[in-house]
């Protein structure tokens, strides 16, 4: 394996992403966790750049690192968080969960490395923002519209769900 710039970039970014995720799992305070996760999302945006998807990278930063993280911070602030001792049931569940996830990861990795994936190499010029915009608004116009309706519904739904109920106010 030649030590190309792409490889170094991928290596650094993936270490950042995985490190952020691991920190997120192991942090004690919820706010730190949110920040670690934002860091991970940011690293993933960098990987998108490596994969010739600059628009997605920007979107990732905007939506995940920006919007969703902020939304989550609001969620954290709106709910109270106590740091109790973990109960025996939770510890037992943690051990079993770790084993299960490890097995799952093992199977996944084994599959990825054993399967002969026929891979091509796309021309970076085909992945420009122009082409993406054309594809979305021509080929995928109807799904795009449906997605916008979905966003609207989700917005209304979220407002209704989070709103205090009438009888509770009184």
């Amino acid at each position, binding site marked *: 394996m030649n030590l190309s710039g792409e490889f170094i970039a991928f290596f650094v970014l993936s270490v950042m992403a995985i490190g952020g995720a691991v920190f997120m799992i192991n942090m004690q305070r919820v706010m730190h966790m949110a920040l670690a996760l934002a860091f991970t999302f940011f690293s993933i945006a960098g990987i998108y750049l490596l994969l010739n998807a600059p628009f997605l990278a920007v979107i990732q930063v905007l939506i995940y690192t920006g919007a969703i993280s902020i939304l989550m911070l609001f969620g954290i602030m709106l709910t109270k968080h106590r740091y109790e001792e973990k109960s025996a*049931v939770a510890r037992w*569940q943690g051990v079993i*969960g770790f084993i*299960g996830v490890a097995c*799952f990861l093992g199977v996944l990795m084994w*599959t990825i490395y054993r399967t002969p994936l026929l891979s091509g190499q796309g021309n970076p010029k085909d992945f420009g923002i122009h082409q993406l915009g054309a594809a979305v608004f021509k080929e995928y116009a109807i799904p795009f519209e449906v997605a916008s309706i979905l966003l609207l519904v989700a917005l209304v739904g979220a407002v209704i769900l989070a709103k205090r109920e009438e009888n509770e106010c009184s």
Partner: protein
Amino acid sequence: MSAQVALLIPLFPFLAFLLLIFGRRFWGEKAAAGIGIIATFASFAVTLPVLWGSLGKGQTITWSIPWFHLGEKAVFLSMRLEPVNVLMLVIVSGVSFLVHLYSYGYMRKDERFTVFYAYLTLFTFSMLGLVMSANLLQIYFFWELVGVCSFLLVGFWYFKPEAKEAARKAFVVTRIGDVGLFIAIALLYWHVGSFEVMDVKAAVLNGKLTPGIITLTAILIFVGAVGKSGQFPLHTWLPDAMEGPTPVSALIHAATMVAAGVYLVADLFFLFTASHQAMNVVAYVGGFTAIFAATIGVAQNDIKRVLAYSTVSQLGYMMLALGSTGYVAGMFHLMTHAFFKALLFLCAGAVIVSLHHEQDLRKMGGLWKTHRWLGYSFLIGCLAISGIPPFSGFFSKDEILESAYADGRTGLFIVGVLAAFFTAFYMFRLFFMVFAGQARGEKNREPVPRVMMVPILILAFMSIISGFFNTPGDRLAHWLTRTGTATISLEHAPVWISAVAIVVAAAGIFLAYAMYASERISPERVAKSVPWAYQVVYRKYYLDELYRAVLVWPLKGLGWILTGFDRFLIGGLVYLSAWIAQLVGRIGSRLQNGQAQTYVLISLIGFVILIVGLTAGRLFP
């Protein structure tokens, strides 16, 4: 006289049994008693022509039909009425009829009156079937059936713990003997290839069996007889069986069932005569039982227990007679004993009824003034059993002593004489304590119902005259030995034997009179002068205690160990499997804790297992 008529004899009680047991809620006391009495009387009536045919024309009724097939061989239901069987038929049906009559008075006002009659008729059927059978398997069948009836009737008042205990003891102890009988039957079938008594007899007479087998089977059959007839060492159940109603004691435990052992030995006498050792065993066990039970009888205080030990002792006499080749003497004594012992028991029952169910001798006395006829009857029974001429017991006991002497068993002869002394002593002790002197205890005497007195008087009459069936002229002996079942020498032994017997009996009576009637010798002083002897006799030679220590407790210990094994090992396994099932269930319910994360975890594990299962083949190419 056809066989079909003879078959009616056991059929009547059986039909009565079916009627009574299925209609036990339906029949009243009168109807139930009527059914039983009529059925047994019908049986008795049918035995009379059979007896006549056998006596006069020398007829032997035989009958046989195939019962079932055992491999290649057919087993028959068969009947053969030789004189000995006919004699037993007459005794059983006659005494049974009288006891049925008597029970109507004795059992009146009992809640399970109908059931009592049902059991009694079932017993009569079984006993009649037993004495008619000419097939060992059939004999065993009826043998067990009379045992069951005995169990049911001894435990008739099952709400009394003693009665329950006694019934169980009777059943278990006789069972020990029955095992011997069963082994003997199996051995005979193995070596002879037939259950028919006649085939076995032919095999024995033709020398087909080795002497060892003959001795072994004879002794095993005698073990069965020992259990049933209450011979030492299996006699302990018989006194306890007195917890049953008195008519039952009279019919089953004095006159008929306990005599079944004697009858069995007599019926298979050819087997015993073929083996000198077996005869020795029979004679010595009989002789020992006679003297042994007689000494115990001296110190008992329960009226029925004295009679029970007397029965054991008299049965020992019969065995002694049979063992001394006194076939006729044994059967003769069986007959007279059936009459006078049934008489004594029925009298004792009447005494008990008149004293409001008081059985302790020390609380009786003075009945002679109020119950004169009962006193006469009881006196007749006592004189008969003591062997005073001209009552029946004298003749039969004389025969026994003669045959023991003629057989050259001087030791057993002396034992017999001593037992006669003790018999006379304790019977008259009983008589004087019940009838003589002043009333002790219960003062209020009830008259005895007439329905109870009639059988007593009939039996008293029979006790007087039955001795003359054989003397003078040896008619009974000629009749019994005609078919060649046994041969006896009809030469009479010296006259001095009779004289000795009378003198000894008179001495016993006189001693009893001196101690209990005129009270010249204080019984307490006698008991105190030999305290240990009195204690040993009073405690029945500590045999019950010995059996308990040697047999019952170790077996109970084994039972405890096995119970522990069952409870802790087998039960533990059962509990373990239940516990595992519970554990699985608890884990399952723990998983259903309502938390989405747990469910996701389980889904994940399932998914991993599924993927691994699907791709496992590729993992190991």
